[in-house]
């Protein structure tokens, strides 16, 4: 298609660089520098979407990020498909594929448009009132149907292959918005030595100057001044310019979130570039130069494609060389409509009429319009538009004494409207600053600050090019000076407007301060006239009036009832007009009705940018031991234990080459440890080195056990309680010398235990000369367990006497293994003769391999955490977190022996003295045997005395651990049961969904109850 609506010259597009793209399957051409919106308008396309609720045909309303209608899908491929992009922000590139949304079967004929005819039955609050019965139907029926009908856009179903990165950054002054105020602020701040960041959401920096064709600044045409200023800023080392970067969130202490679109505009982005980058910028001072948004007028049929904001129409023409139509009707409440009309007329667009809401029309711009022969009609409103899929005419009527006269139809293909400008106070409001109502300009302006920020230019209601430039310069200078004194407290008052130290003589149209909020009169049957307030949420003036009739008084309630200003709009186009309508309906002034909260993000932000690099294998650290790769090479299946990967079991090929399942592998591994020897990677155990003259005293206070008499070279099993007396962690502790303990903790408990110890040391006992150092990662721990363990290790440890007498159970020796320093523990978590070889982790795998080789003559068997669990359960050894749940005392889990009765104090001692802590009906650790030896109970299953007892059946306890024991030939289980120790020998029941299982309460030690094998 041709660019029928393209001007022969002018604009900022690169006419030497044509770009072809597709929209809804049709190929169009535009130029480099076009947005999707400007390129479609140049091709005469205005119909680009269907509305959310009524499926009404919609066109472009604006030319910027405030666009509520033209939401499109842009897809590079199935995975790179992004819904709900604003066509006004999408830069076209060669081959771009875009499509409209929310229509079926096609944009021009949409079945959902039946909703528009049914609209008298779909008022605001319809959902709340209609879909209430029958109960439950909302979830099953109504909500899915409504979502399917009303949804905007479709999310891709395949993973996003693109990269998104995040960067922390710091600057002295962040300037948000690179229009005239922001540029001047950046100039001033950078001239005062500040490190300045200047961010703007658009592809080009310049803001309103990009649409200027006649204004001059410092004697230069605006475009030239802009070019020179950007060159000046770019040349300064202390300035960072960020186009395509939206400041979307203002967080406490001047943390500003900036979304930079890095590759979105490129036809062939490199694979190494991030698609978007999140800047987490900490700015000492912020200058908000976000400008102002033009307000639409609320009149019937103001949503027909071809009806757009006046200044946006001017932007399409001046910046992109795209005429919004051939013949325009302008409806305005301020001088902005005249400026647009004059520019469009100069660009070759016929101005059929200007309907001015104001009774008195005076000033320079109206005078120029009259002089140009434009039909200017004061006290005139547009009461409707006609045309299928595109405006074809507007109905104009005079308003006299509040009465709307007869309508006159004027043919046109575009209607430009302007209700004045609303300062963009979104970021200021996000910073929790308080807005104040300014009667003179009829707008909310930034009032009391909370953060270290200031607004500049139109964002704080300052208009007129020269005044805006000078205000920007003054605010930038003040920000730079304030940033030097960062120690000063955050400001609580509005800064006095500083006088600019630099003049910016500028010549530009003065738009004055007129404007209108609310709905314009139309005199039509209100039931049949739809005058839109919020285009995106399909909210009309009568929806808002209905809300007030139903009793809503606060704008917050009106917003929730009607959904006006919600979602991505965040009040950009709709807020002030909604307020005006409520104000009129209730007869209350605008500030009495309040203002809704502006929430981040300022414009929609992708999920990808929030996820950043934290996805897939890099979502969290994956911790692997030094022996991990050996286990992987030997076929281990792994399980996650906190952030660690631990070998779960080592399946082998069995009969016929079939791999063992977990049950078979664990049975084989268990038998091997009991019969000969097994090897186990225990490196993930937490380790803390407690060192200092007061080390033993500290251990005494932290653990329940007594440590003073533990000799160097000996180990002890230690139990640690919380202040409330319940078991927190356990582990074996070795005393290496009088002032050095090697403490081990559970794998998952390591950080918690260290923090617990440090907490006491720093807050309760700072006088103790003892220090804690985490050594979890210093040591690889290789457990060698089984009757042959000593014989496996003996050849590797010539300098340590491993004999039973020289190195008894629960001892520690320091020496070396293959030249590597080692701390050798004689310790067992299996009930067999056992050793744990601690070596520096860098040698962990090499030592493991040497031990494995030495054990091959005994068929040494690597085993995983599952076998470890079974072996310890056979011995009745608890696992903290499995047999305990934060409410178990040491005595509850048969560890009463580990509590030093003679000790003066230890953490948790006082709590243990409470009567309830030794009540006879506390849940106590016992064993369970099932009548059927093959039946393995479910962990967590409840235990009752009489399953036939009336509901609720009294519950006695529950199963904590349950396994099939290959060595014993029957299943085993551990359980905590009320008064359990007194019930040993009793028969109890475990009721399951399909049957009741009978169990016998037994001692919790199933294997080698006398412990003879430990000391073999």
């Amino acid at each position, binding site marked *: 298609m041709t660019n029928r609506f393209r001007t022969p010259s002018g604009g900022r597009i690169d006419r030497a660089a044509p770009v072809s793209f597709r929209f809804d399957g049709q190929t169009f051409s535009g130029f480099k520098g076009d947005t999707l919106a400007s390129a479609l308008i140049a091709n005469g396309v205005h119909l680009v979407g269907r509305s959310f609720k009524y499926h009404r045909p919609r066109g472009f309303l604006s030319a910027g990020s405030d666009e509520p209608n033209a939401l499109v899908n842009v897809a590079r491929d199935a995975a790179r498909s992004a819904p709900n992009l604003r066509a006004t922000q999408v830069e076209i590139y060669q081959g771009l594929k875009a499509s409209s949304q929310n229509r079926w079967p096609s944009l021009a004929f949409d079945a959902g448009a039946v909703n528009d005819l049914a609209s008298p039955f779909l008022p605001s609050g319809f959902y709340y009132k209609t879909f209430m019965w029958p109960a439950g139907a909302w979830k099953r029926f109504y909500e899915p149907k409504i979502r399917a009908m009303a949804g905007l856009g479709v999310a891709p179903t395949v993973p996003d292959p693109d*990269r998104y*990165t*995040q*960067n*922390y*950054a*710091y600057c002295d002054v962040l300037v948000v918005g690179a229009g005239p105020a922001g540029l001047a602020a950046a100039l001033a701040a950078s001239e005062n030595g500040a*490190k300045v960041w200047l961010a703007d959401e658009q592809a080009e920096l310049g803001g309103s100057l990009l649409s200027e064709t006649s204004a001059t600044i410092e004697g230069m045409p605006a475009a030239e001044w802009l070019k020179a200023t950007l060159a000046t800023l770019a040349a300064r080392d202390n300035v960072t310019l960020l186009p395509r970067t939206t400041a979307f969130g203002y967080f406490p202490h001047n943390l500003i979130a900036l979304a930079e679109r890095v590759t979105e505009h490129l036809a062939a982005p490199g694979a*190494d*570039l*991030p698609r978007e980058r999140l800047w*987490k910028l*900490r700015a000492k001072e912020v200058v908000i130069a976000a400008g102002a948004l033009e307000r639409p007028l609320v009149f019937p049929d103001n949503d027909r494609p071809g009806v757009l904001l006046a200044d946006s129409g001017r932007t399409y023409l001046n910046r992109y060389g795209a005429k919004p139509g051939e013949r325009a009707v302008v409806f305005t409440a301020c001088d902005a409509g005249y400026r647009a009309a004059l520019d469009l007329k100069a660009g070759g667009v016929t101005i059929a009429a200007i309907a001015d809401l104001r009774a008195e029309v005076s000033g320079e711009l109206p005078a120029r319009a009259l002089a140009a022969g434009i039909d200017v009609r004061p006290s005139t409103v547009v009461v409707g538009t006609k045309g299928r899929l595109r405006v074809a005419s507007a109905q104009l009527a005079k308003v006299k004494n509040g009465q709307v006269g007869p309508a006159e139809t004027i043919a046109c293909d575009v209607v430009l409207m302007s209700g004045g400008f609303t300062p963009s106070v979104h970021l200021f409001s996000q910073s929790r600053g308080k807005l104040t109502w300014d009667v003179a300009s009829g707008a909310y302006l930034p009032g009391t600050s909370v953060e270290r920020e200031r607004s500049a230019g139109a964002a704080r209601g300052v208009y007129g090019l020269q005044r805006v430039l000078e205000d920007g310069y003054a605010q930038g200078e003040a920000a730079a000076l304030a940033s030097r004194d960062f120690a000063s407290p955050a400001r609580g008052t509005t800064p006095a407007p500083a006088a600019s130290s630099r003049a910016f003589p500028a010549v530009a149209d003065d738009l004055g301060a007129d404007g209108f909020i609310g709905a314009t009169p139309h005199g039509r049957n209100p039931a049949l006239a739809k005058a839109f307030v919020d285009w995106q949420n399909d909210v009309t003036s009568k929806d808002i009036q209905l809300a007030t009739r139903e009793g809503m008084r606060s704008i917050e309630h009106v917003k929730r009832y009607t959904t006006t200003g919600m979602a991505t709009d965040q009040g950009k186009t709709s807020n002030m007009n909604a307020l005006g309508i409520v104000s009129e309906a209730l007869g209350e002034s605008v500030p009495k009705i309040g203002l809704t909260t502006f929430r981040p993000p300022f414009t929609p932000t992708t999920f990808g940018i929030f996820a950043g*690099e*934290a996805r897939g*294998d*890099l979502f*969290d*650290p*994956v*911790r*692997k*031991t*030094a022996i991990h790769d050996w286990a992987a090479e030997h076929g281990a299946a792994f399980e996650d234990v906190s952030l*660690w990967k631990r070998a779960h079991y080592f399946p082998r090929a069995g009969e016929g080459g079939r791999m063992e399942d977990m049950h078979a592998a664990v049975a084989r591994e268990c038998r091997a440890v009991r019969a000969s020897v097994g090897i186990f990677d225990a490196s993930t155990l937490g380790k803390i*080195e407690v*060192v*200092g*003259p007061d080390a033993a005293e500290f251990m005494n206070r932290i653990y329940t056990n007594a440590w003073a008499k533990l000799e160097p070279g000996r180990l002890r099993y230690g139990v640690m309680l919380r202040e409330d007396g319940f078991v927190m962690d356990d582990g074996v502790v070795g005393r290496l010398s009088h002032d050095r303990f090697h403490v081990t903790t559970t794998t998952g408990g390591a950080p918690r235990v260290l923090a617990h110890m440090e907490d006491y040391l720093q807050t309760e006992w700072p006088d103790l*000369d*003892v*220090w804690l*150092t*985490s*050594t*979890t*990662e*210093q*040591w690889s721990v290789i457990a060698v367990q089984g009757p042959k363990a000593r014989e496996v290790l003996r050849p590797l440890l010539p300098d340590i006497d491993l004999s039973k007498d020289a190195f008894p159970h629960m001892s520690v020796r320091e020496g*070396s293994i*293959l*030249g*590597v*320093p080692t701390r050798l523990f004689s310790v067992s978590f299996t009930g067999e003769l056992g050793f744990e070889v601690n070596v*520096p*982790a*860098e*040698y*962990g*795998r*090499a*030592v493991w391999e*040497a031990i494995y080789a030495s054990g091959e003559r005994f068929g040494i068997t690597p085993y995983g955490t599952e076998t470890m669990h079974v072996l310890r359960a056979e011995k009745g050894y608890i696992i903290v977190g499995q047999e305990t749940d934060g409410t178990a005392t040491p005595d509850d889990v048969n560890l009463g022996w580990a509590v030093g009765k003679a000790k003066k104090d230890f953490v948790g001692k006082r709590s243990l003295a409470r009567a309830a802590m030794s009540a006879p009906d506390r849940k106590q650790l016992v064993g369970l045997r099932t009548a059927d030896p093959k039946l393995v109970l479910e962990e967590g299953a409840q235990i009752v005395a009489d399953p036939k007892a009336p509901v609720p059946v009294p519950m006695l306890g529950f199963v904590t651990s349950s396994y099939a024991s290959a060595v014993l030939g029957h299943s085993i289980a551990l359980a905590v049961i009320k008064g359990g120790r007194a019930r040993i020998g009793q028969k109890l029941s475990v009721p399951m969904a399909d049957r009741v299982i009978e169990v016998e309460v037994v001692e919790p030690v199933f294997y080698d109850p006398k412990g003879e094998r430990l000391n073999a």
Partner: protein
Amino acid sequence: MPELASANPLSALATRSRDVAAARLVALGPAARFVFRGREAAIGAAGGAFGVPLPREACRRAEANGRFALWLGPDEWLLIAPGADPAPIFVAIEAATAGLPHSLVDVSARSVGIELAGAQAAFVLNQGNALDLSPEAFPVGACTRTLFHKAEIVLVRHAPDVFHIDVWRSFAPYVWELLEEGRRELA
């Protein structure tokens, strides 16, 4: 010294690594490392025996003869001696501080060292580290225990464009791969 070879969890990743001049990434070799903590009386003696006076200014490192002492807290230092055998250093410091309240723990194998160097090194670090790494805020000689993404690291600036990262062994591949991600766009 042991007859077995010291293994580095980054060796496979380092072999696959691309050279990016703006942010070069190097997996450093073994080093003797100690955590020294103690009361005032022991501090001078420990520094003397290690050969590097322990810095008393917060978040600064001292260097002498290729060895480093990093201030991590008012009574806590990380001592690093690249390429050295930890055993004799441990003995020397213990001898010098005998009877003085302190704790010396050998953590040579607990962590591994990574060097990140180049004009864009700070930019790459700031993808996962929230500190202001400008030369004014984090000058040459600064060191701190901090975070890189979700992993704890010790970060040192040895030269304007040269950073040293000390990271616990099992977190090292995570840190390395995120550094690789961070410098991808600079290739």
